[in-house]
């Protein structure tokens, strides 16, 4: 996680998302007390979203803005309504509501949160020896937009960073096929550089801690090479499939013609389509981590 340690977060700031579902309301003294602590933490609030479903909280929202500091005051947006309509509104600000812990019945999930705490605790234990003085051990990582995620999960396969990396591999596929052994390595490294330049990393989920860790450059390059090879295989499978389809069609036509010609019907041959071939599977599902 290392949110505050993450340079990108330090530069871009964080987004605060507050749910106040129901009639619970803070008073000003409590709000000031919260703020008093927050004001000593080096984290920039890029924007804030206050979600509520009770009309009685409208004065509270105005109060938050009224008493907030000059910087944060106008960065707060309020969202009123059912959880569904609130989430729809939040999506227009780019908030990933599909992973929001809040549930429609007013309860919230702690699955990811507890997982994160456990992962952090394990890393603390693992790095206990290194934590003396100012040494900083490995930290738990939250995937960023252009991070390439290893693994078979839908989250890993469909992440923006993974999809972008696959696209980069796809557009350089022809070049890769024509390249010599060393040129192929160069090409893989160019793609890695492009990912690094957009602040992306190659992340792998560890079995031990359950968190994400950054893989080394060699492993990242191997992954890209694997994608290239997989795309070659996928392409050949696709061609093979198309060829078999054409054969099927032509044999069906021949048999159809033969049937038309033999009006008695005695010589007619009915060709049945053979079983369909599955063209391909996702490249990420073929490699074990």
């Amino acid at each position, binding site marked *: 996680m290392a949110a505050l340690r993450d340079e990108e977060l330090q530069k871009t700031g964080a987004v605060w998302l507050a749910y106040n579902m129901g009639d619970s309301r803070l008073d000003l003294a409590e709000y000031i007390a919260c703020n008093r602590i927050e004001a000593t933490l080096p984290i920039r609030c890029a924007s804030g979203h206050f979600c509520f479903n009770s009309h009685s909280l409208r004065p509270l929202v105005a109060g938050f803005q009224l008493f907030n500091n000059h910087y944060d005051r106008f960065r707060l947006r309020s969202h009123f309504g059912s959880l569904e309509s609130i989430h729809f509104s939040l999506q227009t600000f780019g908030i990933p509501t599909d992973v929001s812990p809040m549930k429609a019945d007013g309860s919230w999930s*702690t699955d990811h949160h507890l997982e994160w705490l456990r992962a952090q605790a394990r890393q603390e234990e693992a790095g206990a020896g290194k*934590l003396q003085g100012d040494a900083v051990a490995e930290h738990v990582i939250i995937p960023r937009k252009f991070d390439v995620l290893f693994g078979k999960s839908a989250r890993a396969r469909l992440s923006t960073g993974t999809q972008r990396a696959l696209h980069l591999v796809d557009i350089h596929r022809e070049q890769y096929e024509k390249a010599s052994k060393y040129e192929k390595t160069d090409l893989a490294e160019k793609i890695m550089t492009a990912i690094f330049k957009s602040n992306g990393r190659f992340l792998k989920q560890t079995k031990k801690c359950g968190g994400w860790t950054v893989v080394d450059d060699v492993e990242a390059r191997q992954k890209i090479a694997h994608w290239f090879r997989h795309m070659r295989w996928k392409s050949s499978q696709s061609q093979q499939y198309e060829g078999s389809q054409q054969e099927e069609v032509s044999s069906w036509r021949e048999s159809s013609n033969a049937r038309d010609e033999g009006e008695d019907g005695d010589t007619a041959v009915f060709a049945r389509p053979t079983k369909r071939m599955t063209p391909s599977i996702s490249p990420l599902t073929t490699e074990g981590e």
Partner: protein
Amino acid sequence: MSKFRLCTMDLAKEAGLSVHRFPISSEETAIAEDALARALNKLSLDEQEKIIFDVHGIATMPHEYEDTANVSLKALEKEIDRISKKDAYNQALFLNPNFVKDPKFQLMFLRALEFNIEAAADMIVKHFDAKHELFGDGEILAREIRQSDLSARDLEIVQHGLFQILPTSDASGRAVICMIVDLHNFRMSEFVSLIGAQFMFAVLLCDRLPSAHYTVRLSEIKGTPNVLRSHGSAS
């Protein structure tokens, strides 16, 4: 605490509203909203644009040159030296100068305040003041707090999930910190627990970075929000 990020009463005073409580009636709400609209209109177009870009995640961060960062760090040192009342900071410096003077640690404050040197110096000093207030002047003042430092009650609050960070970032790659207001399990009189939870969570976010790791022993917190006791095992 750092004066640059503290709540302000000026707008409420200008609007003639109470500075001791939030607006409660629809009339007061309307007055507050008018005051906010006027304040927004007073901002320059550049400031308004920056806010909109930040809210929608389309703001571009100026490139941070190494030279500029080094100059800012030197200026920050000078600015901290100019602050006379900084006992907690001096104590931390005495205990572990590598921790306090770590450029990565100082840059966190500079970046949080968009390289406003004066504000960053103030925040660093107040940061150690707060840490001292919570933990005393033991060795923990100049080291990070670990999850294992939390008491069972502290952990219970943290595990309740009132403060969580979403597993994925927003469309522009920013971390999303989710806060759930739950005053059913934590009554108003116990609200400081929430403050403690928030503080701890914010601290946990730091993830063993030698910086803002705090916790509070919630069982020691009495009714008033300002009373934040130090963690017993820490000092």
